[in-house]
Every structure is written in C-alpha cells, then in structure tokens.
C-alpha cells in the first residue's frame, strides 16, 4: 500500500515536472522577447534592455530554465514581470476563489450525481431515467460558459435571485459568499452532475445483474442493504469520472469566472497570457497540475479502500 502511494507520488511529480518544463520552453520560444509585450511598442531600446536585465531574459534560455527550476524546487516561483510582486502571493490571493467555485461544483456533482444515478440506476427505463439520458448527452456537450450565460440571464437578470457578478469574501458575509458561488458553481456542475449520474446509473444497472446481488437477496437482505452493496461495487467508475471532471472544472472555471467577474485564477491567467507574463503562467501551470495530481492520488486511495483487490496489488 505504502509502495503504491510512493509510486503514484513519484509519477505525479514527474508529470508536474514534464508539464511545467514543456510549458516553460513553449512559452519562451513562442513569445520571443517578452519585453516588447510588457513595455508596449513605444518603449526605447534602453528601457527594453534594462527590463531584460532585471527579469533575466538577457541570459541564455537554458540558464533561465535551470534558474527557474532550481527556485521552483524550493517553492519560489519568482516575481511577476509586470508588477514585480511574488508569483506565489498573487496566485495565493486568487486561488481560494477558484478553489471555492470548483470545490462547490464538485460537491454538487458528487451529491446530486450520486442521488440521480442511484435513483435512475435502480429503476432503469422510467421517465426520469430517459430524461436523464438525454439531458446528460446534451448538458455534457454544452460548454459550461454557455450554461452559465443561460443561468445568468434567467436567474440573475430576469428573476434577480442571485447576484449576476462579483465575489463576496466568506469572512465578510458567509451567506453572501454562498450566494456569489451559487450560479458559477451550478453552471460548472450541471454537465458534470448528469455525467456522473449516468455513469453511476449504467454501473448500477450492470451490477444489478450480477450473480452475487441475487445471492445477497436470497439471504433476505432488505432492498436498502442490497443497494448499499451495489453502490459500493458500482462506485469506482463514477469516482474515476469525478476525478476527470475535476480537471475539466478547473479549465471551465477560467471562462466561467470571467462571466461572473470573479477574481480567480481565470482572470489572472487570461491577463497574464495577454501580457506575456511567463512567471505567473508557469506558476499557475504548476499549481493546477499539482492539484490534479493530488486529486488523482486521493481517488486512487479511495478506490483501493473500495476495491480490496486493487488494494493488494
């Protein structure tokens, strides 16, 4: 078990290293001289040269890479090229917003996906089941920001139930914080909810036809008890999907944050990518990929707990 965790952690670290190195070279090679983008076209040669010296882009690329990587290993992602504040502190400021939305969305997905999936998986072929099938097809395909726009028009502009834009710190007003998360969270979660629900539904339908379910019934277990057995055995596929959804939600949050004017990673990424602020972009890449690795590790541990065979290997 410990060996398994160590193997997964090492594989995760390699993934973070590979992706961030690739991003480093991709960004540098494509952007070329970043000082043009940072200073604008009216900048003089002297200004550009002094900025290049300050941010270190006058050195060979490979030297820059090892400099960056060496600092990154100690948790120092350098300073922004634009406002010279530390990358970590800027990301640290924005990350809670994005994580709030994504966590809220994942919670919604897990709870409602499980409820809907169990409800339809135990009674396949009902009207609710068929509606869910079609909804899952359509809602999954539609991008989150499209759903967000529809929700904004309906619930914020027309019905005025929720604020259309803005973020409230949980310290300022907890209910206000929840209200500001509601629409972005729901727009992100909707597609994921139906996806998880239909995965769980299919897994439950398959499980319900297995021999041991009949044998469990033959010992007189109640329907609720038999359902528990079925859900535990059907859970792995849905959990895997849930982890994939997390990755999707992180990406989707970038656009949805713009719609609701939330000061999260999304706005920072968009602004930095337009300015060519490479240190910020690299920091964001490392942090998000690390989160994905972490989520997958938690998932693997959960799967091991659910499935005794996987635990052994």
């Amino acid at each position: 078990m410990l060996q398994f965790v160590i193997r997964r952690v090492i594989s995760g670290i390699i993934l973070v290293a590979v992706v961030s190195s690739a991003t480093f070279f991709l960004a540098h090679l494509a952007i070329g001289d970043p000082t043009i983008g940072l200073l604008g076209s009216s900048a003089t040669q002297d200004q550009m040269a002094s900025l290049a010296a300050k941010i270190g882009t006058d050195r060979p690329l490979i030297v820059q890479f090892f400099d960056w990587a060496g600092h990154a290993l100690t948790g120092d992602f350098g300073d922004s090229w634009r406002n010279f504040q530390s990358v970590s502190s800027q990301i640290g400021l924005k990350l809670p917003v994005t994580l709030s939305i994504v966590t809220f969305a994942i919670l919604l997905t897990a709870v409602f996906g499980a409820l809907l999936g169990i409800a339809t998986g135990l009674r396949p072929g009902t009207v609710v089941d068929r509606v869910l099938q079609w909804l899952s097809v359509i809602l999954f395909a539609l991008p989150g920001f499209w759903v967000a726009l529809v929700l904004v028009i309906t619930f914020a502009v027309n019905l005025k139930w929720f604020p259309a834009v803005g973020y409230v710190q949980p310290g300022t007003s907890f209910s206000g914080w929840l209200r500001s998360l509601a629409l972005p969270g729901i727009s992100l979660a909707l597609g994921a909810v139906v996806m998880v629900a239909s995965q769980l539904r299919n897994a439950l339908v398959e499980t319900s036809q297995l021999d041991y379910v009949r044998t469990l019934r033959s010992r007189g277990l109640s329907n609720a008890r038999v359902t528990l057995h079925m859900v535990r055995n059907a859970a792995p596929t849905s959990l895997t999907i849930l982890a994939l959804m997390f990755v999707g939600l992180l990406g989707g949050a970038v656009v949805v944050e713009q719609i609701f004017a939330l000061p999260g990673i999304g706005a920072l990424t968009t602004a930095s990518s337009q300015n060519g602020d490479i240190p910020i972009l690299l920091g964001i890449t490392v942090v998000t990929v690390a989160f994905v690795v972490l989520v997958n590790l938690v998932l693997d541990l959960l799967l091991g707990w659910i499935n005794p065979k996987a635990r052994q290997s």
Partner: protein
Amino acid sequence: MSTPVSSPATGTQAGGAGTAGAPGTPGTPGTPGTQAGPAASSSTRQARGTAFSRLLRKPEGVISLVIIALVILVGILAPLLSPQDPNFVNLDIVKAPASPEHLLGGDSQGRDVLSRLIWGTQTTVYGAAIAVAFSLLLGVPSGVAAGYFGGAFDRISMWVSDALQAVPGMIILLIVAAASGSNFVVIMITVGVFMAPGFYRLTRSTVLSVRSEPYVDAAVVAGMSPFKILLKHVLRTVRGPVIIQTSLTAGMAMGMQAGLQFLSIGTSDTPSWGAMMMEGFTIIRQHPTLMLWPSLALGLTIAALAIFGTALGDALAVRPPAKRLSAARKAVQAHDAAVPGSTGQVTLAGAESAVRIDELRVAYPSSKNTMKEVVHGISLDVRPGEVLGLVGESGSGKSQTVFSLLGLLPETAAVGAGELWVDGTRVDLANLGAHRKLLGTTLGYIPQEPMSNLDPSYTVGYQLTEPLRTVHGRSKEQARAEVLAALTRVGITDPERVLRSYPHQLSGGMAQRVLIAGAVAGKPKVLVADEPTTALDVTVQAEVLELLRELQCEDGMALVIVTHNFGVVADLCDRVVVMKDGSAVETGTVDEVFNRPADPYTAELIAACLDDAEPRVTADARFADASGAVDAGTAAGPVPAGRRAATPTSTPASAEGEAADQAGPTPSGTSIEGSAAK
C-alpha cells in the same frame, strides 16, 4: 464432469435493460462487442447497413443529422449565403432591431448580425475540423500501434495520454494562445491534441480485444498475416465508435473554441459565435437578442452532435434496449404467450408440503410487444425433509422454475400464472415483497458459480453476518459466533481466517462452502441448490455433495437440487422431476426413473450419462485411492470412506442392462443407503 445430451441451447437469456443508451463519455464511449470471426463478415456487413437505417428511423437521428448537415453547408457556402460583408460597419444599424434588409438587426458596432452569424458558422466548422483531424491523426494510429505492439510504446503512449487528460486544457490553451499570438490554427491544433486521448484509448482497447480473439490465433496458425487480419477487423469494429467519438470531439472542440473567443482570444477580424456572445453579453440587459442568436446556434449545433453520437451508438448496439413493462402489461403479454396445457404432478395438499408448485408459468419479453414463455405450467411438490432433483439440459427451464420459487427471477421476467406453497403456506405471487420475506428464513439458496456469487468488496465475515444481524436481529457477537459455527459445520478448518478474507482470496471449493454456510445459517425449511457442484473440480464436487446430504439430514430440510447430472440425482435425491423445453416430462422416485424411465427423453438423458461410464469408473477408483490427500485446505469433515467414493459423476453403471433389479442405481448403493438413513 459429464456431458449432457447435445443441447440445442435454446435457453432464453434474461436480457436486462443494461445497455439502454449509455451516453458516450469523453474518451470512453461504449465499444460494441467485437463481431464474430471472418466467416461472419457478410452478416456483419448486413448488420452495419441496418445500423444506418436504424439510425434514420429514429427521429432524433434524422433531426440531428439534418442540423449537422445544415451547419456544415452554411459554413462552406458562407460567402454565397451572407447578405452583407460581416465586417462592414453601418452606423445606421447600431443595435438596430430586425428589419427586412437586416433580418436579425445590427450589432453594437453597426454590423449585420445575420452575416456575422453565417461567417461565424464557417469559423466554427473550420476550427472543429482542424481539431478533429489532428485528434484522429494522433489518436488512431498511436492507439492501433499501442494495442498491437504493446510493450514500451504502449506504456509510454499510455502515460502521455494520461498526462494529457490530467492537464487542465483550457489553461494550457490560454498559454498557447498568448505564445502563438492568438493564431487560430495553432489554437485549434492544440485543442485537437488535448482530445486525442479519447481516440487513442478507443482504438487501443479495440485492437486489444480483437487481438485476443481466437480467430486471430487461428489465422496465425494458418500462416496468414495477423496484422492484415487485425487491420481488417479493427477497421470494422472501430468505425462506429470512432464516428461517435468524432461527433463528441467536434462538439467539445466547438465549445472550447467559443469559450476562447468569448475571452477575446483568437483573431478579432473574423466573425465568430464566441466573440458575438461576448459582445452581446456586455449589453445583455438592453439588447438580449444580440446574445441569443449565437448562443442558440452554438447550443443547437453542439446538442445535435451529441444526440447524433448517442443515436448512432444506440443504432450500433444491435440489442434493442429492453423496456421496463408494468406488472399488468407483463401479465397480459405473458397470458398471450402461454402454451396451453400443464405438466408434472402433485400428490400433497399445499398445507402438508414443503414446496408445492401448481401450473407455474414464466415468460420473458422477446420483442417489442410479445413475450416468450419458458416454463409452461409446471407442477411439482416436495415433502418436508425430502430431496427432489430437478433434471434437464440447459434451457429446459429448471433454473427459471426454482428462481420463481425463490422470488428471484430477473425484473424483466413475468410469472404468468400458477400457485406456490412454501412450508405449508400459500405465497401470493403478485406480492413480490411478501414472497421475498421468506428468503433467508424459510427459503435458502445455494448458487452455481461460487466465485461470482460473493460480493468482491466485502469480507466473507461481513457478508455472512449481515443477514443474521439485519434479518434475524442477532447482536454483532452473536452473529459472528453463529457464522463461525456455520463455517466449521461446512468443513472449513480455519473459520477465523476465512471470516477475515475477501472472496478473491478463497479457492472455488472454499467459496462454495462459504455460500453453503450462508444459505444454511438462517436455518431454512427449504434449501434450493442450483447446480451446486457444476463449477467445481471433480474432487471437490464429491465433498460438497456429501456436505449437502449431511446438512439436509441433520436439519431435516427439504432440498431442491437443480442439476443436469444424473450422477448427482443418484447420489442425493429421493425423487426426480425431468424437465425438457419448459415442461416436466417425467416425475417419479429415483428408483422408478432410473430403472423404468417412462419418457423416451429421460431414457435418452440417462443413456447419455452412461456413454462414458467405463473411464469414469476407473477415475472413481483412482479418486478413492487419492481421496485422503485431496483438497488439503478444506478438510471435508467426518466423511465415511464408502461415501467419499461416490463422486457426483459416479453414474449408475449397474443400470446398464444386466442389473435392473438391483437395489440401487449406483454400484456402491450409496444413494439408497443415504435415503434409507433418513
């Protein structure tokens, strides 16, 4: 294990509602089962043809196909269809409502909305085409190579695929957009790269499954190039799923593309739906229609692609999804399907019987509005403490009969008619809940296949104590003590360890003992065993049969044992019911049926068992010698040596002609001995 009469295998499979329209997930759409070998190619082609016509018969298939075709056409013909230059600014129509010259009005900068919508269609289609093309180009060949060659390439490409799926694509896309100066083609290629794992996984798993098919091995033996065969079969099987994946990928690429354009990334001079949505969004309160049109276009197109994929998936899955019928509807259809007449016989009054089945009928849905009856009005009864054998080849309806006795038929099945008495009480067949209340208390069930009948996620201890705690109201300690006793009783020498084990840590024989312990732990009056030895090694078979006989004797349970093996009947049963095609062809004591079979089919079955009697007798002798060392892990308990020699397959050799008047059908006479002992 004896081979029964060459069976026509007409068994009606309990088709579940399992595969009803599973929506394709990104990267893991359902792969339809690999078709049969090369010989079946013409019929396969036929099935493909009908798959397309099936798709066109569905309204959602036609509608989505029409929408997709329209979108593509509008995209290609944009220069011809567009009434105006999409970038021409006419200050007179800034935010103007619809008019005859400008059917959808003007946007915030005074450009014609309809023209921009049409040109935006071209951008959307073009971008999706780039993404899909690169996705296919990267995913399919690497998937084929990984599946075919395996090894290092497989491991590395799998890692890359996993890595791509673990990276939040949108963030990388923003970086690529910044790096490439918002080059549209580069951005869409990147989208394609992020979507490639879907195609990769799909083709890889298809190649793997085709590769492990026996006909590929056969082709290798026959000297054909396996690569050629693989290619042919891979192409055939992968085609449908790839089309489904393509439509899903196209939809998602359009969504990502519009999302980027909504963030004002991508070229600003080409009109796009995403950019139009963004422009409309800023003035949504004053002019909601400006956002409406591009949103509608995007939503409709993506929904059409998704529905097309699903409809095609449904059409390719040859088995139509089984509909869930109401009980009343099933009853009517089952009534229509009933085969007139009844078979079998009863001699006991319901109140005196352990089990009495009267003219029971079971039917399954066969097509849309009809049902096929598989058990045709069978009657039988079992005395308290009696052992009844239910014999027949597969598909004879014997399992269906006992599952309706247990109330454990699949949900699609319908009990058409009949009466059922269990332990002297009449069971209301219409009330499944009440029927199932008998399970675990009055009725016990021993399944056929030991490994698939234990829940893999729970320890043996949990599975066995759970019913005692929740059904019989025992405390945790009490339940544990009873289960330990039951495990000891079925001959498990190390019950503490087995209690802590998971099913996959047990041998087949051990698992079957666990299942028997589970069935008898509730002290049932009637024990139903469905081919309890078929899946076991010959040596273990004998022990399990012996165990069943002991348990039955000690507890005085009635035992209904389903088997296709007359050896089991001879060893264990008092009476036997022979079934064929859903009817009872003969009922009688073991003695009568073996020595004076009334029905030619029974005689045929018995004769089939005797065909290879000679080698089996030798095998028995060998087994008797070796029996001491057999299955050391599970001591069989105190078994008399003479009984041990009676393997389930020790067929009544003596019945072969000369000794019809001999006391018992088996040479050792154990079965008579056994029943006389009761």
